[in-house]
């Protein structure tokens, strides 16, 4: 579903991402891991059109989408969540998700209807699916960190994506919250037939649900494959555990 070929990006003299290539097959759950500064978020930004790559291409469902603007990309079926929670703080939880439906269903340029009652049912359903149904009227900025992450998930899902890119979905969560969050994500991915690609620091999470792991180090791919293989890979062990050969 997603093919990345030779993506590269430098900032000034610093090469954040250099020649990264990997595939994400449809329906799979893939993870991108690597130490801090390995270029994971930059990679996501390149894939989702947030920044333009210096080289390389991204193919989504067989179509070249390199450098397409984010607002066009999410129409094609790519959804994304952010590392630092990215929601609409002064809107209510309900309005946050509703806005995504409004735009995705093409009513964004409508100047005549009233927006209040639109997509009530769909929004309620989705909020229930992520567990925020009873917080619908609350102001989003006042939610707890975990609640905001749930909201982010809901917003991304409202776009009815085929692939979901999650940037550190459990960052800042306690062990219990992480467990619940991952269970939720897995459940939703299965029920909606989603392809998942996520970045993570928490190795337990990664080895628990990822079917494919890509390891980045200083902007380059040093390993790519099934979890068991990656775990055994000497380069990976050296980078993560400091083991010497």
């Amino acid at each position, binding site marked *: 579903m997603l093919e990345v070929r030779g993506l590269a990006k430098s900032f000034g003299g610093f090469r954040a991402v250099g020649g990264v290539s990997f595939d994400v097959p449809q329906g799979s759950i893939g993870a991108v891991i690597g130490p801090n500064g390995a270029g994971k978020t930059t990679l996501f930004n390149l894939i989702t059109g947030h920044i333009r790559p210096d080289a390389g291409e991204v193919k989504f469902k067989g179509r070249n989408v390199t450098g397409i603007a*984010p607002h066009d990309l999410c129409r094609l079926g790519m959804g994304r969540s*952010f590392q630092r929670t*990215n929601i609409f703080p*002064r809107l209510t939880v309900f309005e946050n998700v509703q806005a*995504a439906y409004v*735009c995705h269903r093409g009513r*964004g340029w*409508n100047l005549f209807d009233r927006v209040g009652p639109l997509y009530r049912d769909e929004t309620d359903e989705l909020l229930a699916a992520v567990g925020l149904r009873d917080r619908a009227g609350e102001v989003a900025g006042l939610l707890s960190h975990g609640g905001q992450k749930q909201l982010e998930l809901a*917003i991304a899902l409202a776009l009815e994506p085929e692939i979901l890119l999650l940037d550190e979905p459990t960052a800042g969560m306690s062990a219990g919250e992480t467990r619940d969050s991952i269970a939720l994500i897995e459940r939703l991915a299965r029920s909606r037939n989603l392809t998942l690609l996520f970045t993570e620091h928490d190795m337990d999470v990664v080895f628990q649900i990822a079917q494919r792991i890509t390891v980045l180090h200083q902007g380059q791919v040093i390993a790519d494959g099934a979890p068991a293989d990656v775990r055994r890979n000497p380069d990976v062990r050296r980078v993560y555990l400091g083991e010497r050969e």
Partner: protein
Amino acid sequence: MSARIPWALVVLAAAFLVPALGSRYYTFLANDIAIWALFAMSLNLLVGYSGLVSFGHAAYFGIGAYTTGILMKKLGVPFLLAFPAAGLAAALAALVFGFFCVRLTRIYFAMLTLAFAQIVWAICFKWNEVTGGEQGMPEIPYPDFAWLERAGELVPLLGGWRTAEYFYFVTLVLVAASFWALRRIVDSPFGRMLTTIRENPERAEFIGVNVRRFELAAFVLAGTFAGLAGGLFGIFNRGVFPDFAYWNKSAEVLIMTLLGGMHSFYGPAIGAAALLWLNQQIVAYTQYWPLILGTILIVLLFAFPGGIAGALGALVHGVTARLRRA
């Protein structure tokens, strides 16, 4: 569960009754307030709803005023055409200027809006042949109210008013209609998209909002209504002058928006009323109005960031909460 009083309609009805008080001064002040309220509400589409701070909104006010002025005074075009023309001219200018402005963010956006407004001012100031240059264009004719007076023979309420009062009624109708239109825009899906841009432009992009295009649309709409306000003001002021587009007019209307409260729909209108009324009171006693205005602004920024509407809202909230507890 309180009876929802339609405050807006109450105020509108009261506004229509002002000339009945018989004072030229009150009618004048009310007319001034109505026009500036529209100007401020138009700016709030940018500042309060889209999160775009423009320092050059007076450009469209000025363009609207000059368009109506030139059409009516020099070309004898009737008000019925000259008024919408003001909005159209302002919209076109907003389209051109806005195209460049929305490519920038924050302080750079603000500075470019300022630069464009000053260019408009400079053109009005120097283009003697068309705009009358530094002297401006005094004596813009009032619209023809003969039809209203004839209607007054049938409906007694419509007859016997002075020209300035007829113009006041027309202003009220047009401003009310504009408010209605703005309300529809703000409550629409388009309006909701604007608030997502205000709240988090990055996130908005990722729900499919073409941020630049929406911002340009908001810019053009805001400019259009500012132009309409300008068209009215040129006639009301009995003359059109270059300083309509000067940056301190932009600052004035921005202050009104903030004073009234930029996060409430009618906030800017309240701010316009408050500022103009205050101005009239203070200017009678002292020439140091800027000093007072500056002090008010500082107090506002530190103590009442939500403006009058915000403070009132908090007050009402506190009172009803206490009543509920009692």
